[in-house]
């Protein structure tokens, strides 16, 4: 078999919003969509928003509006539709990136030569062809085990097979989706090509995959096919399709207008025979075959040009199924391992220990949802990391803490019982202790209540826009107007990987008394949220990401690492000598968490490259500070950033030159030099520098800094840099494969650093790297599909090291 050409992505993203509209609402929706585009162009002149286009759909959704963007944040910021637009009842945004078809054979269909393949819908506003096209859009989910081996090659082969299937029949766009779908295949055909298109669509649904012709499984776990045509108010673009296919028109009439509606359809659509039905809809119109006038007649009703105020909702489906090819279309790849997943058995039983009845009911409901999701073969493998992280969060962290809190409370009660004399000092002390120990019990129960809410959101965000919801439900889109499941999945996997590398080494000293403990494989669950900056819910593994960041994970990868580092920090406790009831000590503990997180990012993220680490700190800080923050506040916040850089620099120096004695001035001067080099507009005033030096020399952190520094003494920085330097990669718009155990976080780090280098200075705009980020993102998603198999949990190399006690990293006292 000829290997497929390299799979490349386009340099632009595609945002498509599917709308359910009231009859006659298309014109207003179109106008509002264009207005929102113009408003966004005014706000962000550097954002490109091109080729708005519109399709009138015949099925469940009514309207598809689409825009090309050079930054997916535009889709978030477009803010369409709003409640003020009133008319749409359901919307869902789908973000996707086109696989570049420039290497693909050009289809031989009757489209004017000037019209490029990619300019036909969905890329063109309105086809310039004289002949209107009938359009189709297919959303497809691919069997996860198809990506079990050489996933990029498998994807390229599949894309090529799809191109071959539609070759000569339809113009074609094949996109990779960031939401529920894996592939979105769309295109258009002239009217007389429609019957052939239907046969190809049937063939598409018979695609199978296997190692040989005799060993295959259906390749798509779900497909969703939509038909439509380019829409304008003059009806000049409605295709005159004639085909021997039946159409069913489902209609809900307005209250009391049932028979008038029935007459309208029968009189307006030739050949229609309308039945009154029970169930959710009132009328079903049956059209035995499609005449050339069918879609024009249909459009006039849908746009309420006739039959005013009769219809609430109308959707039309075509019935077809004739195959002209008895053979299934099989994608044969010898390396495939088409095992059935066993996600349904992945969830352990929930331990409802010491719960209130209300909380127990809530937890049982959540676990029912978990199990239901893991039993759905369409989506289970992608949801499994997040669900198991949620489970880990509850059972390993929260219930453990609640159990400990309840034990302490019970011990206090026992102490009271042992001292019946109410006036005795022992009794009074025990009562005081009981008050102290009662607080955490209530607090932890409230945290578990919050856990329930967050889990519900985690689940919603991983099913929004899925097969059952894409066209009929948008009530899950609270923070972003559609699904971004691929990015959530990727963020979960990257953080879990990072934790698997950093946590065993950093936790070892603390955990040596508990060597039988293994670290969880799935710890982090990402959700996009109404937050201004990335933040984690402490002690749970939940990480909240602003919707604008979820599409640009490469650009925020150090922030994700930092939250992983802080999670590890709170696992280590490290609060000896600090009194947590004292706000000052608590603040010290939290501040030290940031210093610890910095160490983790510097060592395991940037491989001890200080300058790259410093740039990430400066850039992230610049983005985190509000633009209207008063200058004095900016200065004091920046002084703390300077101290954080000084701390990592000091650790670096002490690891390389253990006997060096570095003064605060030396540290501050060195770090400030690096800041000046990379951050033109840093608020690096004398006051800031003085405050940083003073803070460093004060007693508030001094001893604790020493303790934190000791944690990394067992790691030879120089050796680490020499041994673990990531393989230098060249990033372009082509999908890329990874080695079996390649550290994807380091690959992301490399692209992150390349992008940072395109800034003139921290805070300045970086070069738009859409294609490289999209190619790496899709490649990494495919790689994690591969790595998540087999389902049976195998201890990672790091977990095995952890079990053995890390002989290669002996503790140095």
């Amino acid at each position: 078999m000829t290997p497929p050409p390299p799979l490349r992505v386009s340099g632009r993203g595609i945002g498509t919003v599917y709308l359910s509209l009231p009859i006659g609402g298309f014109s207003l929706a179109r106008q509002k969509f264009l207005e929102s585009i113009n408003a966004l162009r005014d706000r962000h002149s550097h954002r490109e928003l091109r080729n708005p286009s519109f399709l009138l759909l015949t099925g469940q959704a009514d309207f598809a509006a689409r825009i090309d963007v050079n930054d997916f944040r535009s889709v978030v910021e477009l803010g369409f539709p709003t409640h003020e637009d009133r008319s749409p009842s359901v919307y869902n945004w789908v973000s996707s990136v086109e696989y570049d078809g420039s290497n693909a054979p050009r289809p031989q269909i009757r489209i004017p030569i000037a019209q490029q393949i990619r300019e036909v819908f969905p890329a063109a506003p309105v086809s310039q062809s004289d002949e209107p096209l009938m359009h189709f859009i297919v959303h497809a989910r691919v069997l996860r085990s198809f990506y079990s081996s050489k996933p990029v090659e498998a994807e390229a082969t599949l894309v090529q097979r799809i191109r071959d299937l539609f070759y000569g029949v339809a113009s074609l766009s094949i996109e990779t989706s960031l939401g529920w779908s894996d592939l979105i295949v769309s295109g258009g055909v002239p009217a007389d090509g429609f019957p052939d298109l239907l046969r190809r669509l049937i063939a598409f649904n018979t695609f199978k995959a296997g190692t040989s012709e005799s060993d295959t499984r259906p390749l798509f776990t779900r497909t969703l096919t939509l038909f439509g045509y380019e829409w304008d108010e003059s009806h000049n673009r409605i295709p005159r399709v004639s085909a021997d296919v039946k159409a069913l028109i489902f209609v809900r009439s307005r209250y009391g207008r049932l028979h008038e509606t029935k007459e309208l359809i029968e009189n307006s659509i030739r050949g229609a025979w309308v039945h009154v039905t029970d169930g959710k809809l009132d009328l079903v119109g049956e059209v035995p075959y499609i005449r050339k006038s069918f879609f024009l007649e249909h459009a006039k009703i849908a746009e309420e040009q006739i039959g005013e105020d009769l219809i609430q909702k109308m959707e039309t489906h075509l019935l077809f199924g004739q195959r002209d090819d008895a053979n299934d279309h099989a994608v044969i790849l010898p390396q495939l391992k088409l095992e059935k997943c066993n996600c349904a058995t992945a969830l352990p039983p929930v331990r409802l220990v010491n719960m209130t009845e209300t909380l127990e009911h809530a937890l049982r409901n959540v676990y029912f949802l978990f199990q239901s999701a893991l039993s759905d073969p369409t989506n289970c493998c992608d949801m499994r990391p997040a669900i198991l992280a949620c489970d880990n969060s509850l059972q390993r962290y929260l219930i453990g803490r609640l159990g400990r809190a309840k034990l302490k409370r019970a011990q206090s009660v026992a102490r009271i019982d042992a001292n019946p004399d109410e006036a005795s000092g022992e009794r009074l002390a025990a009562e005081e202790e009981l008050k102290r120990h009662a607080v955490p019990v209530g607090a932890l129960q409230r945290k578990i209540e919050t856990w329930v809410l967050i889990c519900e959101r985690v689940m919603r965000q991983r099913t929004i826009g899925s097969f059952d919801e894409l066209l009929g439900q948008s009530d899950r889109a609270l923070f972003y107007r559609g699904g971004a499941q691929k990015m959530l999945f990727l963020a979960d996997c990257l953080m879990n990987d990072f934790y698997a590398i950093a946590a065993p080494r950093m936790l070892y000293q603390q955990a040596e008394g508990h060597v039988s403990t293994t670290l969880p494989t799935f710890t982090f669950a990402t959700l996009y949220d109404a937050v201004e900056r990335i933040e984690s819910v402490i002690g749970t593994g939940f990480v909240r990401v602003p919707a604008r960041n979820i599409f640009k994970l490469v650009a925020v990868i150090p922030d994700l690492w930092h939250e992983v580092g802080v999670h590890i920090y709170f696992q280590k406790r490290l609060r000896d000598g600090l009194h947590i009831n004292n706000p000052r000590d608590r603040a010290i503990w939290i501040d030290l968490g940031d210093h610890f997180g910095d160490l983790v990012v510097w060592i395991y993220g940037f491989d001890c490259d200080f300058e790259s680490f410093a740039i990430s700190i400066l850039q992230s800080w610049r983005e985190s500070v509000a633009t209207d923050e008063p200058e004095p506040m900016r200065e004091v916040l920046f002084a703390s950033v300077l101290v954080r850089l000084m701390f990592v620099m000091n650790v670096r120096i002490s690891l390389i030159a253990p006997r060096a004695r570095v003064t605060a001035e030396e540290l501050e001067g060195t770090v400030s030099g690096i800041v000046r080099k990379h951050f033109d507009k840093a608020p690096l005033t004398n006051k800031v520098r003085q405050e940083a030096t003073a803070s460093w020399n004060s007693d508030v952190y001094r001893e604790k800094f020493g303790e934190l520094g000791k944690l990394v003494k067992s790691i030879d920085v120089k050796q680490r840099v020499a041994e673990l330097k990531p393989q230098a990669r060249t990033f372009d718009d082509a999908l890329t494969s990874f080695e079996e155990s390649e550290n994807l976080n380091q690959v992301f780090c490399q692209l992150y650093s390349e992008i940072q280098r395109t800034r003139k200075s921290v805070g300045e705009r970086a070069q738009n790297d859409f294609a490289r980020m999209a190619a790496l993102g899709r490649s990494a998603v495919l790689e994690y599909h591969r790595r998540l198999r087999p389902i049976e949990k195998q201890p990672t190399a790091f977990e095995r090291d952890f079990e053995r006690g890390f002989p290669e990293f002996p503790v140095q006292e």
Partner: protein
Amino acid sequence: MESESNSSKVELQHEDDPLVDIPPEFPATHSRFPTVPSVAFEESIRDAAKYKYEPGKPSPWILELLGISLDEK
């Protein structure tokens, strides 16, 4: 730390993570950069009034480690 040994027993008994023990007074969320300076940091820089700031010269070997020169600064 009076009940550390007891808590360890509970941890093992419940097969829970032996390492996590975050007090309830703790803030619910964390982000890489605080939006307001912490109480502890403000206390540490208040020492600035007592501290006589004398800018010192960085040692040349530190700069060498970093691969930058004074000129670049």
